């Protein structure tokens, strides 16, 4: 980048510009200090474990599988989400239920959450509205195996503090 600024006499006598810089930082200092004294927050920091950022209504967190009225998953194991997944982290094993020969059902439905990029394409692709996303982003764990989210975990997802505000339709 070409830098064309030339110093005039005003910059060369040095003190006016120094005072201007000093004014900016001390303005920040005093306005923030006043906020702290009057009990407001004088910083942009969120002190994470105690204080959480407000999240957007369309935030994409951990997935969950939607249930039907009878308590079985809505999913028909059509592989749409797995096909559409850019990170290829959804693994489905389809099975057939003799009682309901018109539909397949997922025997296994695994999301490798460590590979997931939380793009939400699986939710978009699903023809049955069977997979959705929660607001939960506290997903850290100690082993890779624990990050392979099996069907049971995706069905019985924990309702976190963050999810309480937003009722998740079609549960």
């Amino acid at each position, binding site marked *: 980048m070409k830098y064309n600024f030339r110093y005039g006499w005003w910059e060369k006598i040095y*003190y006016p510009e*120094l005072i201007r*810089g*000093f004014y*900016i*930082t*001390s303005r*920040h*200092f005093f306005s*923030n*200090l006043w906020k*702290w004294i009057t009990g407001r927050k*004088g*910083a*942009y*920091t969120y*002190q994470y474990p105690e204080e959480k950022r407000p999240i957007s209504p369309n935030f994409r967190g951990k997935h969950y599988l939607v249930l039907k009225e009878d308590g079985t998953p809505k999913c028909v194991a059509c592989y749409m989400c797995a096909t559409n997944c850019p990170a290829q982290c959804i693994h489905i094993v389809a099975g057939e239920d003799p009682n309901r020969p018109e539909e397949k059902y997922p025997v296994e439905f695994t999301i490798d959450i460590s590979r997931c990029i939380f793009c939400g394409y699986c939710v978009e692709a699903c023809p049955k509205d069977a997979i959705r996303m929660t607001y939960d982003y506290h997903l850290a764990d100690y082993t890779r195996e624990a990050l392979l989210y099996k069907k049971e975990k995706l069905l019985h997802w924990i309702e976190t503090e963050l999810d309480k505000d937003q009722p998740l339709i079609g549960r």
Partner: protein
Amino acid sequence: MFLIVIIKILFVVGVLLTFAALLTWVERKQSAVTQDRVGANRVQILGIRALGLFHIITDALKMFIKEDYVPEKVNKFLHFIAPLFPFFSALAVFAVIPFGSPIKIGGRIVELSIARLDSGLIYLFALSSLAVLGPVIAGWASHEKYALLGGMRAAAQMISYEIALGVSIIGVIMVYNTLDISLIVEKQGELLFGFLPKWGIFVQPLAFLLFLPAIIAENKRIPFDLPEGESEIVAGYFTEYSAMRWGMFFLAEFVEVAVVAAVLTTLFFGGWQFPYLFDDGFHFFGVWHLPYWLIVIIRILTFFAKWIFGIWFLQQVRWTFPRFRYDQLMKLGWKIILPWGLINIALTAIVIMLING
């Protein structure tokens, strides 16, 4: 008399070390508040965080229990003795700074400075230039290239700014016509044109503008912290120091900040002088008489208020300006501050000549 001196020494050293400890906290918190952050606040005792003040204790604990690693090829004696110089000289400089007007106790006049020397200013500059020995010896003794570069930079920088400092202060000496710092402060209580306090900043504004960068450079703080220069030479002269020996350099730097603020206050902001407050009370549209003990307390509090403002100012400077390049630093010292200091001497001499006729 001996007892009084001991009490004064304990008081001054106690206040200075307390300020130095608090400054480690102020440094972090002030930078955080300036930069819209929260700052250190994680240490808690029984759930009380006290704005992060307990970080002082944990810092001290850390420095004491850390391994004091001394590299194999250092000069052990010099390596040991180097951190003592800046620490000692910073503490000793404060001996001539008056922090209150002389008190009369039982017919005896007690000066509120450890020593009232006729050559106070010379003593001050002599001891503050002793501080350069610390970085230089540390850099030499460490047997390491970055430390040596840092030490050399410290020597070059501090010697050149020593001269600029001395030249810029001569105007003040000429105006007050004395080297005794207590007398300089007493003379700053007079009024100029009947309303303006005769503070150094009003009678010698140019000297103040030259003295301020010079004394910050002398103190090796940003924007003049070339001897440390962590982006260029690791940590400069204290690269090979760890644990409490490094802590001595660290603490000395903060003591120096406090001392520099006190020197600025004393020479340019009237020391313990409260504007319009004389020995018998306020002289402001008539005379408002005040009891003597109240005046003494007001004066001590005034000194501390000015001192704390000075420390705040120096810290804010440290968190505002970027570091100079080395050639810019030398150019500023030799080609700008020194000639302007000489011009200031000439101007002051001419004005004094004209006034005295």
